[in-house]
């Protein structure tokens, strides 16, 4: 059942109804509401685990399980969940598990390059509104076709990283040489094709690892392979319909959209699994400059993140190409049900005195976090006035009259800035410069126009701040 159509009542009816509060909620109805929003786990209801509720449990799971199965790869703290999604469009509910980004290495790569790539995987991190954005997996391709070389590469990778691995060879003999070394780390096996499915299925069973069904360009065969793997008793399956170079962007969109649509809207058997995309296919095209390969890869990655993949494999490791990819997935996988705005108030940063600067920003969450982070990192002791702009950024709020001289003057009064500082001088964002005169008039405070971007605040305060201008 599509997640958005589920009501708490449907769930409540199947719960024990004893209001035992063991789940931490005040009653079963509250727990049902949490379950519907996927904010609680079914097995937090301990009475449900008892024998008499076996059927109810199964029925509840049937209602609550995601349309796209959640597949675990890796172990321990670096383990990842691929898939586990409920809807096609994020506004219908929310997306849950960000697409994993796997970095490509191969078994005929020079040691130095191999190691550099793994280090980028391990160490890449970018702080974005309080979150550390990182990379997730290592994809090891057997390009040599030599089992010994593949085993060496797998061993080397396993020594260098704790992040989950994907082993890529379609030769079962090559695969097993690598797999047997790291099976306990639950790597993803890539994969079962129309030719090797039986032997690969045996390997997945033997080593208890998740497996990719791979059928580039042929969705019917992809579904056949997935159904056959299911018949084998395998449950952790990932679908790779192949990714085509950027020239065939249309084919890629068709394929990934069809697969996700079929699993969500048609509840089609054999397709309710995470999808794997490979933007790195862009590197197989001869270009004048490798920069173009990496650029095309970033664009492909962007399109595939937007269109439903749960995991992508990339070859480019330059920050300029990785950064937009991880920003995009972070953006699209934030919960659209959560409010955009933070509370309007005065924030104290560091230990300001009565002569410290008063800065101003809006209550749009992204703007607020960026500005507050910048001021904190620059260690500027100050007050930050967060004006209610109905959750809009400075520029839009000014253009849309959501932040006006009057709302600023009111905020100055409401949050008692006159009691916090002795001076009467406020620094407003550069992007609200057009309000400076009006604010001065409405509030009686003198107004200084700050930098266009909050990264310039520290320098601005150092050079220009004067609480008592003449």
């Amino acid at each position, binding site marked *: 059942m599509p997640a958005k159509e589920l009501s708490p009542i449907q769930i409540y009816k199947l719960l024990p109804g004893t209001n035992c509060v063991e789940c931490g909620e005040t009653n079963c109805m509250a727990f049902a509401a949490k379950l519907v929003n996927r904010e609680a786990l079914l097995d937090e209801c301990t009475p449900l685990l008892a024998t008499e509720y076996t059927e109810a449990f199964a029925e509840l799971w049937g209602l609550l399980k995601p349309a796209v199965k959640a597949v675990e790869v890796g172990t321990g703290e670096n383990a990842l969940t691929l898939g586990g999604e409920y809807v096609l469009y994020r506004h219908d509910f929310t997306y849950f598990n960000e697409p994993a980004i796997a970095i490509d290495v191969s078994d005929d790569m020079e040691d130095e390059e191999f190691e550099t790539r793994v280090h980028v995987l391990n160490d890449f991190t970018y702080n974005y509104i309080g979150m550390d954005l990182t990379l997730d997996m290592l994809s090891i391709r057997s390009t040599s076709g030599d089992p010994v070389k593949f085993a060496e590469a797998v061993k080397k990778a396993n020594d260098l990283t704790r992040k989950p691995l994907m082993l890529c060879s379609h030769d079962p003999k090559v695969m097993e040489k690598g797999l047997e070394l790291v099976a306990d780390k639950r790597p993803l096996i890539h994969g079962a094709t129309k030719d090797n499915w039986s032997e690969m299925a045996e390997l997945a069973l033997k080593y208890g690892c998740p497996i990719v069904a791979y059928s580039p360009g042929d969705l019917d065969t992809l579904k056949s392979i997935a159904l056959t793997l299911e018949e084998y008793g395998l449950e952790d399956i990932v679908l790779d319909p*192949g990714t085509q170079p950027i020239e065939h962007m249309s084919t890629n969109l068709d394929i990934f959209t069809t697969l996700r649509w079929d699993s969500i809207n048609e509840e089609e058997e054999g397709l309710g699994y995470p999808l794997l995309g490979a933007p790195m296919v862009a590197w197989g095209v001869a270009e004048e400059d490798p920069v173009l390969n990496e650029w095309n890869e970033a664009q492909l990655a962007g399109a595939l993140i937007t269109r439903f993949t749960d995991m992508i494999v990339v070859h480019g490791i330059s920050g300029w190409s990785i950064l937009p990819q991880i920003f995009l997935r972070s953006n699209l996988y934030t919960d659209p049900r959560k409010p955009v705005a933070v509370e309007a108030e005065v924030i104290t940063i560091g230990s300001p005195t009565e002569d410290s600067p008063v800065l101003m920003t809006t209550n749009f969450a992204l703007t607020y976090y960026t500005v507050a982070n910048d001021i904190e990192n620059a260690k500027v002791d100050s007050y930050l006035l967060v004006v209610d702009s109905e959750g809009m950024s400075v520029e839009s709020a000014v253009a849309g009259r959501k932040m006006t001289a009057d709302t600023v003057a009111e905020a100055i009064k409401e949050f008692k800035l006159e009691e916090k500082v002795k001076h009467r001088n406020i620094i407003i964002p550069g992007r609200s410069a057009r309000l400076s005169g009006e604010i001065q008039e409405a509030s009686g405070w003198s107004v200084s126009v700050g930098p266009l971007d909050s990264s310039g605040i520290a320098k601005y305060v150092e050079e220009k701040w004067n609480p008592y201008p003449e």
Partner: protein
Amino acid sequence: MAKERKVTLPISADLLEKLANFQEIELQDVIIDLEEIELSVSSSGGGGMNPVIMNRMAAEFALIRDSASRMSQVFGGGMPAMAPMAMPAQYAVAPVAPMAPIKAKPTSLIPAKTTIPPGDYVGEIVEVRLGATKSEGGTRSVSYTLGGQTAPAFYNFQAPPKNKPIIALDVFDWAKVPLSKAVKMHFREYLQDTGEWARVCVEKYGAEMINLHLLTIDPLIDDASPKSAVKIVEDVLQAVDVPISIGGCGDPQKDLAVFTAISEQIEGERLLINSVTLDMDIEKSAKLINDHDNVVVAFTSMDVNKARELNRKLYDHVDKSQIVMDTTTAALGYGLDYAFTVMERCRLAALKGDPELNHPMSSGTTNAWAAREAWMKMGPEFAPRELRGPIWETITGQTLLLTGVDYFMMMHPAAVNALKQTIDNLMKGKNPTETTNWVTVTVGGN
């Protein structure tokens, strides 16, 4: 009364790991004499337990239970049914089915067919013509039609878009407009000459339209007169032969005065007037658009209901085919998710039949440069920013292209080029004759 006894099988984590290497565990020469067994398999201790093995073990124990139960019928006494084993795992992971049947292994691939998702949309995006050629009463060498879609953006398997999205380059009439270095370097020589700037955008950078922004009219900048604005528009129309869009400064009164002068002086070009907002005099603005047969951008700020409201108000005075809607573009990393979702909601609602949202969409993709990551100096691992900026603009634009945007206002030549190429590729919609296998691909091509 029988005394309850509990026996714990001492299976160590170590042994469990070893067991994980096997598909089946056969117990031989074992006699189990019991009334109730509790099986608890810990997933701690490294590898985690293979669910396949757990299923099989569950099945084995089910057999034991059944025989024990039969015995108990003979000897009296009870054997409770086994409770399902709950796995301490993340919510979305299925609890193990209590008794998965052991099936025979398949010997051939199970044939299957994938459904082509049906596109049963009732709505259609209205078509809007921008610009006018000589035969259409204007002086442009080309005019464009936006809209006409009957399926979500590039669901080519349902219905490819009827008309291709258009890319316009932003041109400003104010030399001091704040631009990022990476952008400015391409236009530095033309900042003083708006017409020349526009010409370079078309001839050198492939702009399909010019998106002129009249900033000098801003009372806070030069407060230039409507008459001087008309002159600038005439210069641009002279310099290029593509359709143009006229943007105001954001001051509702001044913008209306300037739009009025331009509409009255320049007839027949089917200009795109950018924009009319809810706080403008909508009746006057809309009549102006209608009287002079131009097109309006209905601009709202990331709110589906406001977008509907503005369109509804415009309908009283202009034809639907004269409205393009803009629900605000935010940069990648700085609100793109909101921009994306509002546009996606608008387009899907329109296709489902909402009669107040079925307009072509416009995006101020240049806003991508509001993201500091697009222009800021960062560590060497993020260099060069000459690439980071334009890819930022490209991904911002491409993401919105996939919601259904029809008209892009952009700035960086590399981003314009990349997005144009992408649009062309998507419009062609041709499948490859030979599929590429990424797993064996040679980096750098053959």
